[in-house]
């Protein structure tokens, strides 16, 4: 009987140590996991905050750019810096309503005749006997 009791106590102690070891390990793992979860959650939140911060900075910069590009401000700068820029009043495109081929031919011929060609020599015709 005594021998059996000792064996039981031995086993109990072994299991007790194993249980303590496992329980401790499980506890440590749980604590570590919870810590990691906290760290990850914090990192996520920090990232989200950083993204929001950059968004806000982008918004701010964009607003500044838009403000600086306002028509009245540009006009003021034009005057202050003496740039002399004028609004686009003239029509930059001429819409051709007449015959395009004739118009192009006229322009091309005008160039050829007016640019660098020697003046035509007077034509002299001589007939025998005169």
């Amino acid at each position, binding site marked *: 009987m005594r021998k059996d009791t000792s064996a039981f106590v031995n086993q109990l102690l072994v299991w007790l140590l194993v249980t303590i070891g496992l329980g401790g390990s499980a506890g440590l793992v749980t604590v570590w996991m919870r810590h990691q979860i906290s760290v990850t959650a914090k990192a996520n*939140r920090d990232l989200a905050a950083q993204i929001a911060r950059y968004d806000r900075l982008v918004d701010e910069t964009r607003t500044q750019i838009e403000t600086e590009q306002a028509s009245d401000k540009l006009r003021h700068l034009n005057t202050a810096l003496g740039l002399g820029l004028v609004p*686009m009043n003239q*029509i930059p495109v001429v819409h051709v309503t007449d015959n395009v081929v004739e118009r192009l031919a006229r322009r091309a011929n005008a160039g050829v005749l007016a640019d660098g060609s020697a003046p035509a020599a007077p034509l002299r015709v001589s007939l025998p006997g005169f």
Partner: protein
Amino acid sequence: MSKGFASSRRMVLLGSTLLLCYAALGVRLVWLHVVDRDALLKPLAKVRPMLIPESARRGDILDARGARLATSRSEILLGVDPHSLLPRDERKWAELASLIELPETELRQRFQPRFRRAGVRGEEGDDTGEAPIPFALPVASGGEEEQRPITWVKLREDVSESLYERVRRLDIRGVYGIRHYRRVYPSNELAAHVIGYVNREHQAAAGIEAYADFYLRGQQGWRVGERDGRNRELPQFASREVPRRDGYSVVLSIDSTVQDIVEQELAQIAARFEPRKASIVVSDLDGFVLALANYPSFNLNEFNKVPKAEEARMKNAAVADIYDPGSVFKIVPAAGALEERLVTPLTVLDCTMDRMAHRGRMLSLPAEDHKMGNLTIAEILSHSSNRGAAQLGMMLGEERLERYARAFGFGAKLGFPVGGEVAGILHPHRRWYPIDITRIPMGHSVSSTVLQMHQAMAVIAAGGVLLRPQVIREIRDSANETVYRYGRMELGRAVSPRTASQVASMLVGVTRKGGTALEAAIEGFDVAGKTGTSQKFVDGQWSKKHHIASFSGFFPAARPKVVITVIVDDADHKAPGGVAYGRTVAAPSFKRIGERLIPILDIRAGAAAVPALLVARHEGGAR
């Protein structure tokens, strides 16, 4: 077999002790987690949870080219809790004062810890009190006599993100900011009456801001979490979260370039004629407004600085004020008579008569500015004959004239979304005086908004269809995807395309030699339009010194691209000859705006020529 270590009593004792320790630990844990749980959690539950609101960013208002007319910028309301300040930070105060541009003496004064008697709250506008944040630490309250510390003193309210970064780098304990969005209008006065504004309480007060607030405002988000002893959020304990939804963006049909041209023109009119008011509307052929401006106007970023006495300048006069349309209205009887086939463009009417019988009663016809003879319908328009218009009205009769006037958009709201549109005045024909049939055709005894006059002219340009004037093109979500696109909206057909084309051809005569508004002619383009000059009702009578000058027209006449209306109220004292005629005051503005729009809107002269027989054959004309 060996006796073994376990046989020792000491081992049994050790095992038992360990077991007892574990049992004690277990019992204590059960005690804490079950028995004492409520008592322990109660104070924590009060202190640790925090509700963190997340402000949604209000959507932008964009013009047709994507330029931002209204946007939201994050700003920080910087404040201090004087009771949290530490002596070690005092050396940084001078730098903080310099950063936020506050005199150091003033800063030190605000940093002084102060108390307020319990139960006494700060006045409205007071810069002190408790932190204006929902998750502020509760302050212990005692009896009525207890002094409560003032935990919030405002330092500056318009701190930018970049400046706040620099303030934070100083790391002064107790100095902190509350982030909020502020509405910014980068273009200041541009399209002020259309865009509207958001007031200091962040409520949309006028214009598109108010009309499209449902789309723009977005939805605030929030999350419930816990915080540690230093008031820092513990994200791992977040229990509920509703993400914020940023507002949608609204894309307007307003073109900043066109709007700017129009506002420059208004400034020119204001400098030249010093009118009481002036309005210009520019729209395309689908009813979308490209520009709408009023003089006087105001700066959207400083809407709260407009003096009380000048608050009228914040009214959108183009839709909220009514005028007698004057001769611009003559397109209604002319189109009506053509549509009913009572006349043709070449029908000749005797415009010398001063009285005429109508429904068994002799009615006096309105006076002309100068002598007219026999005029065709085209000439009645180009010379702006009052008697000719009156005869056309009498041919139509009261019922049909009223029907056509309403079909052209007079006497009812057009559904313009902003500015507090009014319906104008057009009484039912049963309530007309007998003389009204001779006065309404020339635009008297009827009142309309500038926009109604503009849309009436747009009916002719759009081939006889009355269009709803619109200013919103698209709604876009925060990812810039279009969620809704507005299209052309027809309110009804006023006249047939044939009649509209005939009237358009006749209106070309107005801007040609012999017409009343050669000043509106644009070289290379057929311009169709109509001048208007109406007397104002001053001190109980129709004044001869106060007029409303207008010109409404479109071009190119054959294939219109743009409709422009210019109205100038009470510019007589600076007008040539002391009378502000549409020809001298409004028509030149139409021409200048039109010329500047040609390259911007790529307007090309139509190939179709306007029939010569419809153009006025007489010279002269005054109105």
